[in-house]
């Protein structure tokens, strides 16, 4: 273990690993079957949504039960832009600006309240959003939904549809994840984490809890919008069902299972969101939400830091067993490290 972590500290090793990962990501769609490509594409779509949710909920501690609303809104804006045959770059920008503005309005109001009010306001978003989108038929196509494909591969590329979609979605996902990682590591990220941990301390340091809560929520909504754009890129269709309440809960489950306040956890969450329903649907579609509930409860009971803390937890268990064999109870650096990670959701 020790030799591995010292190896990872060398810069050239890290660079090589990243380059290798990039090559794998680029070559993969050319060799993988169509269905696998589509699955990876969808993981990219929802990893972005989970990353946004993680920024507002994991890093900033505001419980957001309505992230899917912004995904749905982004998808609708993108679909509307595509059917109007606007420039695709403009459509992309609008598809995260509009949800961003919606998120700004919601959080300007909701962040004024203390405690759990944000959860109570955001749980309404999908429940209001679904009948709303059914009503605004001329923009959304009503209950029927709206077809709008823009990911037909250009002729020069010689790619199949699924491969082109993969490249479009995965490249945007990678860029968004780099932006997200920089955001949470930088000045703003540290500020929103202090707001989560203690608002009074934050304000005494000159960080306005209100402003940073609004900022985190707005950024999360924009990530949701990007995810909606990617959703349309991958599926070419959206309907009120996209933003249904069940899916909103699904995103929360995915974030907690992946790991709160973790970039890698967001990616794992995206994978969970796409893969688990595929598995549970294969077993029994009627049991999907029962499984969701049980898995979430198990993770909260046994692994509160999510899948991303699994290696640390296992290492700690091993260490415990070893110290028990020796009969000693020497606390080690590693175990305290994983404890702090565990407590991140609790904060």
């Amino acid at each position, binding site marked *: 273990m020790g030799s591995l972590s010292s190896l990872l500290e060398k810069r050239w090793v890290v660079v090589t690993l990243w380059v290798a990962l990039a090559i794998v990501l680029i070559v993969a769609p050319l060799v993988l079957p169509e269905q696998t490509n589509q699955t990876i594409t969808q993981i990219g779509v929802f990893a972005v949504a989970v990353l946004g949710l993680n920024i507002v909920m994991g890093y900033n501690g505001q419980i957001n039960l309505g992230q899917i609303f912004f995904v749905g809104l982004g998808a609708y804006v993108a679909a509307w832009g595509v059917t109007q045959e606007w420039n695709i770059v403009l459509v992309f920008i609008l598809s995260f600006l509009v949800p961003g503005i919606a998120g700004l309005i919601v959080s300007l109001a909701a962040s*004024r309240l203390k405690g759990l009010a944000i959860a109570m306001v955001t749980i309404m978003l999908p*429940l*209001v959003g679904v*009948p709303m989108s059914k009503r605004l038929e001329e923009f959304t196509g009503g209950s029927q939904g709206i077809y709008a494909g823009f990911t037909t591969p250009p002729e020069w590329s010689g790619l199949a549809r699924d491969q082109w979609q993969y490249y479009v979605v995965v490249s945007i996902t990678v860029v968004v994840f780099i932006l997200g990682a920089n955001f949470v590591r930088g000045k703003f990220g540290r500020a929103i984490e202090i707001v989560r941990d203690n608002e009074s301390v934050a304000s*005494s340091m000159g960080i306005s809890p209100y402003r940073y809560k609004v900022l985190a929520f707005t950024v999360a909504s924009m990530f949701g919008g990007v995810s909606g754009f990617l959703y349309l890129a991958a599926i070419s269709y959206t309907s009120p069902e996209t933003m249904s309440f069940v899916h909103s809960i699904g995103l929360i489950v995915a974030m907690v299972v992946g790991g709160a306040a973790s970039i890698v956890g967001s990616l794992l969450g995206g994978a969970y969101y796409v893969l688990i329903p595929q598995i549970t649907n294969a077993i029994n579609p*009627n049991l999907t939400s029962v499984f*969701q509930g049980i898995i*979430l409860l198990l993770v*909260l009971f046994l692994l509160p830091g999510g899948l991303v803390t699994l290696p640390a937890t296992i290492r700690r268990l091993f260490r415990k067993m070893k110290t028990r064999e020796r009969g000693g109870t020497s606390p080690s650096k590693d175990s305290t490290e994983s404890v702090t990670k565990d407590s991140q959701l609790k904060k």
Partner: protein
Amino acid sequence: MGTFIQLVVDGLALGSIYAALALAIVLVHRATGLINFSQGAMAVLSTYIAYTATKMGIPLVLAIIIAIIFSFLLGAVIERVIMRRFEGGNADTAVVVTIALLTLITGLSGWIWSYNFYPFPSLFAFGTTAETAVDSVTFLGIEFSLKTITILGAVISVKSIMTTLTIVLIMILLQVMFMKTKLGLSLRAVSINPQSSAFSGIPVGRMLMVGWGLAAALGAIAGVLVAPSLQLSPGMMDGALVYALAAIILGGVDSPLGVVIAAWAIGVLENLAAVYVSFIGYDLKIAVPFILILVVLILRPQGISGTKTVERV
């Protein structure tokens, strides 16, 4: 004018149901300081129990009592087995646990009873069976049943009046219980200061179970009262949950009376908006409390009854 009075009375009946669910959430919040998002799902599960009991030939009143008892036990067991571990810890984690319960319980209802809509007999529609009750009911309580009375030219349904009266009666009973009985005193003591209560010999854990049980029972009453209008389905209370939470935000989670008044106001307002504001109509009624909250919060930052709080570092 006749329509107006009718809408107001029906709105009050709807508001009463939201108030019951909201009070259940307030009850849990008082005892444990968290918002139970699965309150509506638990109410639906209890309503299914009542439904199954009536299908087995048990009279409706008895079936509802069975459902209320089941609900009380369900609430107490959930508190003891699942929530206890997360109480006293971080509120955000505990809330995510209630989200897990919401998914789990809704999923169980859907798995056992399917996602179809079932008609549910009304407690106040005398002599009607579930099958005939469907015909007399339209959407969300705006029904024109044969059982109506006419006051000042307004046709008012008996069901609406009875629903409102039932909920008011239950609220009075709860208030008496909290203020005049030893159990109520213990419950209040636990919610104000669990540690001191434990020192004075109050079984804190058992009181928390009772608090959750009472809340669940209250939710079950809301469930069986709303089921005849909405028809029974796993997602039946999703809308009611939105209204209940809106009432809590507007009324203040620490003020039961404020919550009830807010719930009535929402019930009446959404009913009027559905008829008089053509864009909203019946399908967008649910947006009314949401827009109300946004407007109020932007114009009045501290909330309607909110005060600025001081927190120690």
